[in-house]
């Protein structure tokens, strides 16, 4: 201790003092007294400089040393018997996670795939509900369903939870990324290699080591190239930690003083630990990779404690120049330097000759650049940030190393982006200026968890997030709110109620007139309510809306979860009000979840870097529409897909996949909408031009195509709602709306709320409908 104290002033005083005093002497030719005064002044200045540096050194080292960005994770894939899973989609996700396909899948982070059979060897992950250890699991994917799930190695249970894909981070301004580690998480081999290569006298020096500079020079001369650096680890740490990158004498001096001060105040272990977390080891776009913990993930996709000696040797090799020795770009340089490090270990007896030979014989084993290199899904991350902003400060998100577990399904997200892009390209005219835009939101149809969110045709560029911010007229996708308002009054309306689909004129007090028209410009006479919905007829819907009133329909919209104020005129009934795709998703979420409002969520939980849970966004429901009433609407929306405006969706979908949904087209075809759901997913698609030009598309010729193509890529359960207790199904004659029997021609199986069934009945044998059908079929 005393030795350090005494050396501290010496270290800094001598070089600077001579320099400055001669300078003054030449100019002033002063007397002895003046020289003495100048020396005193100089000492005071220098001392205050040292005191200042000391404060800087201590403040940063003892305070929050680094700003650790929040890490954003996708949902972890859970694999179990009965899971609907497409093998191609699974491979997509495994590769994004950095898994390597091998023959046997016998180490963590590998998988094998032979025919229907898959073996996945997971890496393990610390979840907020406990650690999921690495496991080797075999299963089959037969007809897109997982079966014969079998744990070959590891904890026995029926679900394999893979580690979640990191999909991005919330970075501070300077974009340094690191994963803090403590010394005991670092393998002994790495520290030994580091000290042997970078600073042999670390254990003994006082911050600077003139001897080791000379030794390094000798070693370099012997090797004929630079194998050792002269600065101590402490100096390197100071350089990166406190100082700019310029190479001036003053800076070198400051560096030396600060190194001494650091060594004076702190333990070797603390300094080493700070170094291990500070050192710059790579670059991923604008993001700088700092520290061995992050570098281990960045280059090998696994934690530092799991590295083999050849892998830690590569990380040590990179300290000298992460760009020059970049193992992904300059493989031979990196390999040569890694082997040099291994040879040093051999020379020093850390490795035996045979161990060193084996280690040098290994390939670099670096994984592909991880997908989180840059924020891969900017539109989704945007949503995550907005939802986080309710509970967290931006500053904390950028600096506290929080872990954010989101609901994103990378398989759905990837497919959604590609499908939107390719469909937009096929729909756009060849003229490049007229690029059509679009947005997609996909959620779990019961859970409300956002599986995918695409904000435009170029999803990798963050910019205008159309899924959240393109507030556009919604057209006919508003109609479920009109029909729901009617069906809520079972004494007045049922699915077979007769509606008039005929033109009318509505005159307002100010003299303006409203003359709605059907899309086909025809009127369809008297039609049953379910048909008006499935064919999306405007005249009958507008008339129905007028019977119900604007207030009634807008209050239904609010119940469904639409928060934005809506148009207060009757044109509301035909969707002359604007919402963003995300808001439409909330509205349809309530319909898909059978009248239970579930908030559409992108975040499951937020934890500290050590896994302690800070907040959880739990599943909560709020019943806003009676299940019986919603069941009637769902029947109508299934009809839209089976026999109405969305029928063409079965060009893409298997006919067994029952879905419910609604198309929407706005005036002059400016917007093309489709919102629909299966038993597993709810999807909302919007297409249009940013400047509101006409697209020439309807809901079914535009948005529905994207929706159908997207959903066709995912095995899933059909939407087959259970009959609520207050519902009776009856056979109804389509022509008359009377009760009839199964098997009669024109008979339709329709749900009714108890007590609202039609009273008139007609027998199919005595009725003339069958006869007429038979008669018609003769011609």
């Amino acid at each position, binding site marked *: 201790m005393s030795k350090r104290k005494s050396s501290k002033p010496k270290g800094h005083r001598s070089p600077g003092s001579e320099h400055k005093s001669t300078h003054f002497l030449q100019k002033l030719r002063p007397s002895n007294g003046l020289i003495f005064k100048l020396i005193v002044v100089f000492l005071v200045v220098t001392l205050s400089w040292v005191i200042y540096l000391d404060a800087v050194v201590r403040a940063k080292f003892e305070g929050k040393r680094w700003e650790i960005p929040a890490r954003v994770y996708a949902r972890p894939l*859970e694999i179990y*018997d*009965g899971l609907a899973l497409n093998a191609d989609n699974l491979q997509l996700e495994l590769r994004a996670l950095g898994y390597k396909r091998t023959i046997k899948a016998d180490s963590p982070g590998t998988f094998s795939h032979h025919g229907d059979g898959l073996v996945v060897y997971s890496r393990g992950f610390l979840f907020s*509900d406990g650690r999921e250890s690495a496991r080797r699991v075999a299963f089959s994917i037969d*007809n897109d*369903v997982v079966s014969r799930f079998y744990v070959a190695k590891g904890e026995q249970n029926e679900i394999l939870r893979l580690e979640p894909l990191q999909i991005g981070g919330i970075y501070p301004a300077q974009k340094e990324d690191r994963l803090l580690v403590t010394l005991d998480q670092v393998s002994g081999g790495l520290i030994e290699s580091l000290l042997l290569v970078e600073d042999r006298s670390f254990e003994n020096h006082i911050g600077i080591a003139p001897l080791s500079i000379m030794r390094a020079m000798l070693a370099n001369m012997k090797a004929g190239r630079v194998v050792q650096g002269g600065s101590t680890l402490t100096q390197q740490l100071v350089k990166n930690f406190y100082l700019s990158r310029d190479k001036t004498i003053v800076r070198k001096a400051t560096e030396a003083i600060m190194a001494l001060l650091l060594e004076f105040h702190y333990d070797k272990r603390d300094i080493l630990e700070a170094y291990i977390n500070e050192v710059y080891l790579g670059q991923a776009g604008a993001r700088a990779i700092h520290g061995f913990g992050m570098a281990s993930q960045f280059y090998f996709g696994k934690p530092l404690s799991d590295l083999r000696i050849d892998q830690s040797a590569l990380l040590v090799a990179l300290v000298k120049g992460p760009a020059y020795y970049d193992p992904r770009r300059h493989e031979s340089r990196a390999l040569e330097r890694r082997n040099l490090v291994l040879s040093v270990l051999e020379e020093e007896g850390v490795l035996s000759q045979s161990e060193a030979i084996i280690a040098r014989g290994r390939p670099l084993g670096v994984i592909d650049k991880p997908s989180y290199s840059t924020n891969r899904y900017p539109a989704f991350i945007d949503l995550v940030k907005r939802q986080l902003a309710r509970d967290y400060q931006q500053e904390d998100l950028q600096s506290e190393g929080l872990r954010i577990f989101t609901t994103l399904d990378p398989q759905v997200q990837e497919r959604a982006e590609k499908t939107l892009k390719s469909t937009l390209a096929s729909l756009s005219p060849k003229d490049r200026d007229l690029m059509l835009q679009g947005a997609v939101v996909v959620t779990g149809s019961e859970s409300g968890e956002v599986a995918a969110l695409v904000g435009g045709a170029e999803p990798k560029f963050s910019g205008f997030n159309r899924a959240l911010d393109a507030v556009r007229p919604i057209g006919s996708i508003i109609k479920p709110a009109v029909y729901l308002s009617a069906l809520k009054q079972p004494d007045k309306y049922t699915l077979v109620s007769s509606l008039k689909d005929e033109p009318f004129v509505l005159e307002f007090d100010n003299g303006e007139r409203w003359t709605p028209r059907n899309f086909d410009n025809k009127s369809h006479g008297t039609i049953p309510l379910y048909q008006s919905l499935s064919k999306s007829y405007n005249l009958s819907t507008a008339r129905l809306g007028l019977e119900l009133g604007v207030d009634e329909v807008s209050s239904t919209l609010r119940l469904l979860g639409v928060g934005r104020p809506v148009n207060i005129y009757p044109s509301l009934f035909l969707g002359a009000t604007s919402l963003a795709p995300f808001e439409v998703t909330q509205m349809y979420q309530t319909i898909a979840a059978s009248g*239970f409002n579930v908030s559409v969520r992108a975040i499951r939980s937020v934890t500290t870097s050590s896994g302690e849970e800070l907040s959880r966004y739990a599943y909560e429901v709020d019943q806003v529409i009676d299940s019986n009433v919603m069941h009637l609407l769902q029947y109508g929306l299934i009809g839209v897909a089976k026999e109405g405006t969305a029928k063409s969706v079965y060009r893409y979908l298997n006919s067994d996949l029952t879905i419910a949904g609604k198309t929407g087209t706005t005036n002059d075809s400016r917007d093309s909408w489709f919102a629909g759901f299966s038993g597993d997913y709810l999807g909302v698609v919007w297409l249009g031009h940013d400047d509101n030009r006409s697209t020439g598309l309807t809901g079914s010729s535009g948005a529905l195509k994207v929706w159908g193509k997207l959903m066709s890529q995912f095995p899933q*359960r059909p939407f087959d709602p259970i009959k609520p207790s207050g519902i009776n199904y009856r056979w109804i004659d389509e022509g008359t709306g009377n009760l009839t029997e199964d098997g009669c021609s024109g008979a339709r199986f329709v749900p009714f709320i108890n007590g609202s069934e039609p009273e008139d009945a007609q027998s199919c044998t005595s009725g003339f409908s069958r006869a007429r059908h038979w008669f018609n079929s003769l011609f």
Partner: protein
Amino acid sequence: MLNRRSSIHLFHNDNAITKIINTRVLVVSIVLLSVSLVGCSVQPTAVVPATQEHEAPTKQGARMSVPQQKTQKAYEPSARTNTTYLSPAAQELVVKAKQYSGSGDSVSALRYLERAQRISPRAPQVYLAMAEVRLQQGENRQARQLANKALSLVGDDDDLRLATEQFIDGL
């Protein structure tokens, strides 16, 4: 004085309620367990595989849909009443959740139940179990909502219906 007395009353009432709740939770759990044993034999709604060629040729599709239009039969809903039961994987998570809620760790219990819900989103047992945990947390309103959700999915399983209705009545 009056206030203090009323608070004592409240306390007593709370105790009584907890007792009722405990017995009810027990009944419900027994019912759930017996239900889940039956559940294993029932097939869940079948998964429809992904379409291999998701860009079906449009012309062919259009040609096919034209004749279909004329002879198309009215869409016939299944009007199913058979209850969707937990898949074995979801069942395992529900059992774990019950262990956690049994030891008073309602937060972990909910985490496991949400995982079960993602696997079997239309199994009423998941929602009833969530309702029980919410009640344990003292969130009666959310407990009732979740029980309503369970009730909307209960179908023809009369035992489960009874258990759910009793749960709601006891709130």
